[in-house]
């Protein structure tokens, strides 16, 4: 439970009224200036930390022409997932059907949770192995879809230290999964065609190769960005009217910033804080647009500077 800020009376739960039962001060108004200034300093400090992260995210997306191109290239695999992956032809007495295997068909089956027939076929002694290959190929494609979505979502972290490595890893995973799906479908195809000659045939369609090309493009653009780099432009932030680096330097130096702000205007407070920094022998140097500032100690000048002959 809180104490009265004026008389330190221990306020109980039943003390709901706005006035202190001991000294009668209005608890809502008393110390309002200090609380508001403390809230403002805290909020602006939080914003200062957040602004740096925001500037890095912004650079990840629009920091250069290559970053913008990276967005488009990262979306391409998701778009190309909807191209046709494979085609299956089944021709038998009373059965003449062609099945297009693509993201929409597979997605609908997943949504319906309709795997009963597939699991039964996977358990069969005759067709079990080919169908297991088929299921594995589909699983690889679905994982490739998940990976491509994850790539897009994690794009905002590209400017972090491991960002490029992560982007390249995810795109490589997508490429490997798509390649594995291609190989496994080919295996399924040839096994099934051997088991049911003349009845079954299947072929890979262009979509799967275009998808592999899209993943390769994502790897390429990230490699280019890793080489040329993207400059992050950091926006200058202010806390109680002074650059945030000076504010943090003042707080670290033990200067009571809040007391310097009480009962004065913001401009007067800013001047008081800067004077306090100088008195503490601290100078804050920051290049415009850079992330961090350099805190320097202002050395005392010797009394006699004339060099001795």
């Amino acid at each position, binding site marked *: 439970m809180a104490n009265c800020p004026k008389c330190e009376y221990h*306020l109980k739960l039943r*003390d*709901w*009224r*706005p*006035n202190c039962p001991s000294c009668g*001060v*209005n*608890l*809502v*108004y*008393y*110390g*309002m*200036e200090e609380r*508001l*200034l403390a*809230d*403002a300093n*805290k*909020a*602006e400090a*939080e*914003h200062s930390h*957040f602004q740096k992260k925001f500037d890095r995210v912004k650079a990840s997306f629009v920091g250069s022409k290559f970053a913008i191109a990276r967005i488009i290239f990262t979306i391409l695999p998701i778009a190309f997932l909807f191209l046709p992956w494979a085609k299956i032809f089944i021709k038998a007495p009373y059965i003449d059907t062609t099945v297009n295997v693509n993201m929409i068909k597979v997605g609908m089956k997943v949504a319906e*949770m309709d795997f009963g027939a597939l699991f039964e076929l996977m358990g069969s002694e005759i067709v079990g192995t080919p169908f297991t290959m088929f299921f594995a190929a589909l699983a690889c494609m679905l994982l490739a879809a998940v990976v491509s979505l994850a790539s897009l979502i994690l794009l905002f972290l590209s400017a972090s230290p491991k960002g490029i490595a992560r982007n390249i890893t995810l795109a490589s995973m997508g490429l490997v999964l798509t390649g594995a799906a291609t190989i496994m479908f080919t295996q399924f195809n040839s096994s099934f065609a051997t088991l049911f000659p003349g009845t079954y045939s299947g072929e890979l369609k262009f979509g799967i190769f275009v998808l592999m090309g899209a993943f390769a493009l994502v790897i390429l653009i990230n490699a280019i960005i890793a080489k040329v780099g993207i400059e992050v432009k950091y926006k200058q932030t202010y806390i109680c009217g002074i650059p945030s680096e000076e504010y943090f330097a003042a707080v670290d130096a033990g200067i009571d910033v809040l007391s310097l*702000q*009480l*009962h*004065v*205007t*913001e401009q007067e407070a800013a001047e008081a804080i800067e004077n306090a920094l100088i008195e503490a022998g601290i100078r804050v140097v920051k290049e415009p647009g850079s992330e961090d500032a350099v805190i320097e100690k202002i050395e005392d000048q010797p009394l006699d500077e004339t060099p001795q002959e």
Partner: protein
Amino acid sequence: MEQQFIDTNRRYVGLKENIIFGVANGGQVLSFSLLVSYLTYFYVNIFNIDPKIVATMLFLEGIWDTINDPLMGSVVDRTRTRLGKLRPYLLGVPLPMALATIFFFAGPMFLHNPSPTAPSKVIYMVITYFTWEFLYTMSDVPFWGMAAAISPSPADRTRAITSARLISGIIGGIPTIIIPILIDLTESNVIGTSIKQVFFVAGITSGIIGMVLFFLSGVFVKERVVQSVEAPKLKGCYECITQNPPLKLIILQNLLGSLGGIGGIFATYYFIDVLGSASAAIVIGIPGAIVSLFSFAFITKIKARFNNKQIVIGSKLVNDALNVLMFLLSIKRYADIRFMIPVMMIRSTITAIFSGVNAVVPTEMIADSVDYMEWTTGQRSEGMSFSVLTLINKLNGAISRSVAALLISGIGYKTSHSDAIIPQTDEVKFRIFAMNTIVPTLLGLFSIIPIFFYDLVGDKQQRMLSDLAKRREMLAEDAEN
């Protein structure tokens, strides 16, 4: 006296507090959206109560709202505690509200009388629904009042309201996605539950999780705009409407906009009876839904160039122009789904650009009107102002639904007791199309007129904020001394 510590250009609300405010609203909307989306279906189909009894209860509840909402507003405005006037409700309501939500959905689990008019079920329905509504009002009015009291800085309020609208839009959509999936899984026996169990568990989940999240607002969100030391008299609470021209204009704008709401009701008929596909609405809405999420990022840029009055008028005119254009382009092909889907998709995507700012600015304008009341009379009226607007929105919905119901038979729409969907004539189909597009657009145009007289922008607003800041500092000094 020179203003010293209240600076309307400073930031007082941090990022964490903003996110908590949004998450709290999300929690509140979690149970609200579950209840409102499935209210009639739950009572009629799950609890098996006669629809006429349900309709009568809803009608009576609407009348009760006209008393309850302003009453709650005046109670909030007259509250004075050491925690402020709004926070006590944000701390005290979550527990009873969670229990009310659980009991709401528990009825079919305990009362098994098969009769649709069983007195036990009807009494249970009335008590639980009225209790839930009463508690919801008790949470909603102070929560939105907090949007005005969270900071003396208008930019802070914009950020808080943006956070609330964005996060609650995401969290509030969860029940509408999960419940249909669970219903389908139950119907196809994939999960071994009954539908009444699905709703009961949903009620427990949304009640507990929702109210835990809502409780965070009472703990972490602060009231930084302090109230007058003396609480206003009851008459003074109601004067916040009569002596507040900006608020009166906003109320009038909302009332005149109610007729424009018939478009939304006829949309269902348009998709089912004219285009022949109810799910086309989902497909059409997908790009707009994505754009509307990003639209919150444009708010700062839009507000840097335009004031609230210009935003409200401008976005309404753009929306109306798009509706008129769509009507004229589609006049010969309104029943061709292959033509209408892309046309409507483009229209809804463009209007979605303004959805963020349209979700935030009206609430901000009410907050500004609360400041205006304090400027002119010395009393703040968050409770009354937001409760009246909540009531007006409920009335709008009722007016739209009743006018639409009258118009349905007026345009020659045919119904059948054996089939939900029967073919309509081309003339009726065209009328449905017109009722979905051009008619509500033209009727809704009147709602802009009051806003032309709204003048709480620009220099007047800056002067008001500056005067209020100085006055609040003087009040703080007087109270301390």
